[in-house]
């Protein structure tokens, strides 16, 4: 596994990002979901083909300034400031779950900054007839059952492991609460913060990747995203729930790399 480099980058006076960077080739910014950022086999495989920049959401890892962010507008501006600091005039952005919601907002707000948009079972929309369960009111076992298709798979078993050492357990628990706290700032109490009004502005070609058995944000939301985003296509992946990037890593990488490597239509003309 490639060792990502950690950078601490003040985006502006109020927000500082810890960013994991690895790989080579075209830049891809990856925005993680509510569970936090781990350099996992998916990111490792992605960095084989692209230069991956993976910032921690403010309030998680060593990223700071969550309390200075009033809402999604502030959050978008902080990410644009980070792009500036990374020298990314524009980049492809891939986001998972909450990260997908942020990626979609970034693409809708300043169309020039997001080249191609990869949304992996993103949050951000709400269907009354298919409500998204409350991740902030679940036991760990219930949460796991919502996000993996098979809790008895090697991945499911790995995620049930608890450190036996008290100090390690404390740190894991606190990191988990901090991840959830930061996520809750943007998802509480219902993960609909108005993206439906702005999604029409997304001009970047968009790929929606969804686990067919997603029990947290069901595939009905893939249809809704496709309906709202002008240039969007959907790839459904079988035998996967919400952690589709870890459950079916190869298939997600295949779908994404083909999509991200495509030249923009304008460049071909």
């Amino acid at each position, binding site marked *: 596994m490639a060792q990502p480099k950690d950078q601490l980058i003040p985006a502006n006076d109020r927000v500082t990002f810890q960013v994991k960077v690895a790989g080579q080739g075209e830049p891809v910014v990856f925005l993680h979901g509510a569970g936090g950022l781990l350099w996992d086999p998916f990111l490792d495989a992605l960095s084989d083909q692209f230069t991956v920049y993976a910032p921690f959401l403010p309030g998680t890892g060593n990223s700071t300034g969550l309390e200075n962010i*009033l809402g999604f507008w502030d959050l978008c501006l902080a990410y644009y400031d980070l792009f500036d600091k990374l020298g990314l005039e524009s980049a492809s952005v891939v986001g998972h779950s909450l990260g997908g919601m942020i990626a979609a907002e970034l693409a809708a707000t300043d169309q020039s900054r997001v080249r191609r948009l990869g949304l992996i079972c993103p949050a951000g929309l709400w269907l009354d007839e298919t409500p998204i369960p409350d991740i*902030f009111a679940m036991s760990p076992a219930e949460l796991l059952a919502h996000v993996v298709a098979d809790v008895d798979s090697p991945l499911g078993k790995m995620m049930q492991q608890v450190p036996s050492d008290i100090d390690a357990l*404390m740190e894991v628990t606190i990191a988990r*609460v901090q*991840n959830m*706290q930061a996520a*809750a700032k943007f998802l*509480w*109490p219902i993960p609909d913060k108005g993206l439906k009004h702005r999604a029409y502005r997304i001009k970047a070609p968009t790929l929606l990747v969804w686990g067919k058995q997603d029990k947290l944000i069901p595939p009905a939301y893939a249809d809704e995203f496709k309906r709202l985003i002008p240039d969007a296509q959907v790839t459904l992946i079988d035998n996967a729930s919400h952690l589709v990037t870890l459950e079916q890593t190869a298939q997600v990488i295949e779908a994404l790399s083909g999509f991200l490597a495509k030249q923009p239509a304008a460049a071909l003309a």
Partner: protein
Amino acid sequence: MASARAFFPCAGALAKDAAVKFVSFNLMPYRELPDDFEEKYPSVWVTPPKTLYDPKRGHRFYHDYVDELEFSIDLGFDGVGVNEHHSNAYGLMPSPNLFGSILSRKIRSQDKTSLLVLGNSLALYNPPIRVAEEFAMLDVLTGGRFIAGFPVGTSMDTNYAYGVNPAELRERYYEAHDLVMKTWTTDELFMWNGKYNQLRYVNPWPRPAQRPHPPVWIPGGGSVETYDFAINHKYSFSYLSFFGHQYAQKVMDQFWDRAAKLDGDMNPYRAGFAQIVCVSETDAKAQSDYEEHVRYFFNKCLHVDPRVAEAPGYRTVKSLRAGLRSQFDGTMKSAAVLLKEGLSWQELNEMGFIVAGSPQTVADRFKEFSEKLHVGNVMLLLQIGSMPHWLTMKNLQLFAEEVMPKVQPIFGEWDASHYWPSGFGADAEEAGEEARTTSKEPAPAFGD
């Protein structure tokens, strides 16, 4: 006679007969949850089915509870107390101020008992000057016999039932506090450009009867942030748990530790705690009278679904760290775990969850732990769980007439006037103002 108060206490005057201050507190529970409630439903809070609530029974309960609080005024308790909960089957006061306004009619007609609203969860009011207004109304209605409580509110109430973002709750609380206090202490109309509140015309009528403002009490759990907030503002800190005096000891020790470090003022009236009390003719009769109702409370009313017990971010990381350590290393079994495992009546008594017995037994216990805790204010839960009206009335009367006189004045050297209402009369305005701004009694060393 215990704790007779001067009608208009002079600032700095030593109340020679000052004893523990007793507040008759009522949570207003629903008394008829089904027998299988805790097996059938996940929680008494946030998610209990509304269909279990019968408004006809609710009507009866509300009026029983108002009768009980009014009787407490007749009996001469130092205070009657109400508080705020939401979507909660044991705390049926989404708006405690409504009950405060009913009680204020009787409170104004006597000079012993004050009204304690403990309190309004500031972050839940939009704009928060609503609290400044309604509390000022209650202060005026009671004739300056009002204590203002400012809780953050539980996560169940604020985050889950009322949808406040846990990442913003404390900031909203502190901003609302600053706004309410400025509202009370500023004579001129002012503008407020806050992070969460923008108001161009802050000028509520009425203003409070007590000058510059009613005494402020802060209910809270055991977090250093809350101790410091109360101490630094000269507010009274109240540890509102249902686990009684032994569990309160650890929190109060930490609180007095902080007080000693921050300002050295050990006035016992700057702290309070809650205690379930059951008085009957004999110790044995107390068990036969009260056990089923106490068990109803511990088994059904404390049946809270852990999934909605604490939103991420409700506690600061600092508090979380402190709490997790004792939870993980097993040094201290949580009270909730002990209760779930089941305790005998005697164990409940010995561990301080309840103080139950004959008047003499109860008085002896109070003397013992009041000094140890060094706490001047006790929120008495004399109605608890399914306790019927007649039994609550008996409990109230026995406590007031048989226990209170036996609890000897133990805080005689201390002046309560900064933390208790000054009343409202010809010269009360000045007396209260002075009392609230000059509370620098030289503090004797606390403890050994």
